[in-house]
């Protein structure tokens, strides 16, 4: 019977051309949207590499250009912040703190290899504030004060791309000046950009205030005790503002920043899903209409099939089968096109993302086809054979 259905649809390819084309385009749109969704969802379930709950970011903007004065005030602020009983740990960072709308990257080279990597400037206690685990080597510490090199901690993504199979610990990476970075540790994951973003190669560069005398860092991360809220925020800002008169201070929780970042990924995803939903609805209505029309045109054939021995359930299954075969023709074209994405590694997205999207899209198209064919096929099965034969 399957052979018969394929033959029937193939022989009617001209009249079915538009339906096959519609299914083909519907599949492509669905595949594109699903690829985006699968990409985001898969990233969402991957570890971030840090804990953002109960972490606040204090952004400070001094009112003078005097670095010496600002540095003095900054150290007083940090001293006071550490002194709050409600605060567990603090660390300075630069503007590309977790979930911030800012990025900084740098070109690194090792041997023949060169690559861009995100750079995160952090103080020694950053690992405590963000509760990060070093999987290989160590985090920054006092032992780095005497080092001739700039110690860095890299993430696994950078290690794999820059050092491949080699152990990165102790390896030197030249800086722009005559000095070098030295790898002291590796963290498994670090995805500060967003939960929906894939992990990118990155490294932590140490903020050591005595060494970076001319630098000013305006972002202070604080891990507060669980349950701290607006009351403590007001108290803290009031006290710190007392130390740094004229400075602008702003506190944001990393949770709030995470939500803002998540919105940026969710909004296009939702918008595309809605657009895709409307498109599918249109295709479904079209498919339903065409199937309905086709079946009403084939009354005589239905009557004949019943006469030669088809039970009504077989007529029902035949029409569902025909739609599935029709969908298969559209899908074969669609899959042949879509498979190029993982094969050619388009957009540097993991192949598995495309394969999952492809599988779901194929399943949804078949479900859509069955859904659209269900009622017309039932009607076809209910046609009285004697009446159908008489209509010719």
């Amino acid at each position: 019977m399957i052979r018969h259905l394929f033959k029937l649809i193939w022989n009617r390819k001209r009249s079915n051309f538009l339906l096959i084309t519609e299914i083909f385009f519907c599949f492509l749109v669905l595949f594109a949207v699903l690829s985006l969704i699968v990409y985001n969802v898969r990233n969402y379930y991957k570890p971030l590499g840090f804990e953002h709950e109960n972490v606040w970011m204090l952004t400070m903007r001094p009112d003078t250009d005097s670095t010496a004065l600002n540095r003095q005030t900054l150290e007083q602020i940090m001293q006071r912040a550490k002194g709050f009983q409600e605060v567990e740990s603090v660390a300075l960072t630069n503007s590309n703190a977790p979930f911030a709308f800012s990025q900084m990257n740098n070109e690194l080279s090792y041997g023949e290899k060169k690559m861009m990597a995100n750079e995160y400037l952090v103080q020694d206690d950053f690992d405590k504030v963000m509760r990060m685990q070093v999987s290989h080597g160590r985090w920054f510490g006092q032992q780095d004060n005497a080092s001739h090199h700039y110690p860095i901690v890299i993430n696994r993504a950078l290690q794999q791309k820059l050092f491949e199979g080699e152990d990165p610990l102790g390896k030197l990476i030249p800086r722009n000046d005559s000095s070098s970075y030295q790898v002291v540790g590796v963290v498994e994951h670090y995805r500060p950009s967003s939960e929906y973003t894939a992990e990118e190669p990155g490294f932590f560069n140490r903020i050591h205030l005595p060494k970076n005398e001319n630098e000013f860092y305006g972002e202070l991360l604080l891990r507060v005790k669980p349950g701290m809220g607006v009351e403590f925020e007001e108290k803290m800002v009031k006290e710190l503002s007392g130390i740094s008169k004229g400075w602008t201070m702003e506190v944001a929780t990393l949770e709030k920043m995470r939500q803002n970042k998540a919105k940026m990924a969710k909004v296009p995803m939702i918008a595309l899903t809605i657009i895709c939903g409307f498109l599918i609805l249109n295709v479904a209505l079209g498919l339903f209409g065409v199937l309905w029309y086709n079946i009403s045109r084939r009354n005589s054939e239905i009557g004949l099939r019943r006469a030669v021995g088809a039970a009504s359930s077989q007529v029902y299954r035949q029409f569902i089968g025909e739609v599935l075969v029709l969908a298969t023709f559209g899908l074969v074209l669609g899959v042949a096109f879509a498979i190029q994405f993982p094969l050619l590694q388009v957009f540097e997205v993991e192949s598995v993302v495309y394969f999952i999207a492809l599988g779901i899209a194929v399943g949804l198209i078949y479900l859509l086809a069955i859904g659209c064919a269900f009622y017309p096929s039932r009607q076809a099965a209910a046609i009285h054979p004697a009446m159908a034969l008489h209509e010719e």
Partner: protein
Amino acid sequence: MITLKNIEKVYQTKTIETVALHNVNLHIPKGEFVSVMGPSGCGKSTLLNIMGLLDEPTNGIVEIDGQPISRYRDKELAHIRNQKIGFVFQSYHLINDLSVLDNVELPLLYRSGTSAAETRHLALTALEKVGLSARTKHYPTQLSGGQRQRVAIARALIGQPELILADEPTGNLDSVMGEEIMNILLTLNRQDGTTIVMVTHDENMAQKTERLIRFFDGQQVSDAKTTAYDYQKV
């Protein structure tokens, strides 16, 4: 082979009740070639539909090989149609998107246990019987009316049915083509012993069959052996 007892068929709408058949009693033994005649609307096709299990009588009993079919469900009726009955229609009812061979194979698609190779062999044999083995790859639209009807007969034959129900098989054909089709049906009846019930408007064709039943206004008005049948040569 097939027996009808007190068959009545009434078509009912909200406002009108039409009696298509009234108190029809018939017995058609195995191997008989029966023609049914009567003016349009007298219930001939309804009778054929009831005999072919495509329609149910409002009242009365239909027996096939002594078994009343009223207790059978849709699936079982379909099985009997597939195994025992072949249909030939005035308008051929061929599927234009399938080749001659595929059209002929159609009944065996609904018969389990027949392999593709066997189906093909039976289809070719059926086409050979009707003299169309050279047209297997043609499509119905590429054939003449007579050829199409021969394909329809081959389709009815492929399942080797005991009974062929032919509803005006020569109605759309000229006299030469009509003769050809009639000869094929007569051969089937005489050589293979296939029971045939044929509805026709053509008195000459009817006279070539063994028995002629006349209908008028849904009632059987005569049922007699024809005189010419014994002397017909195919």
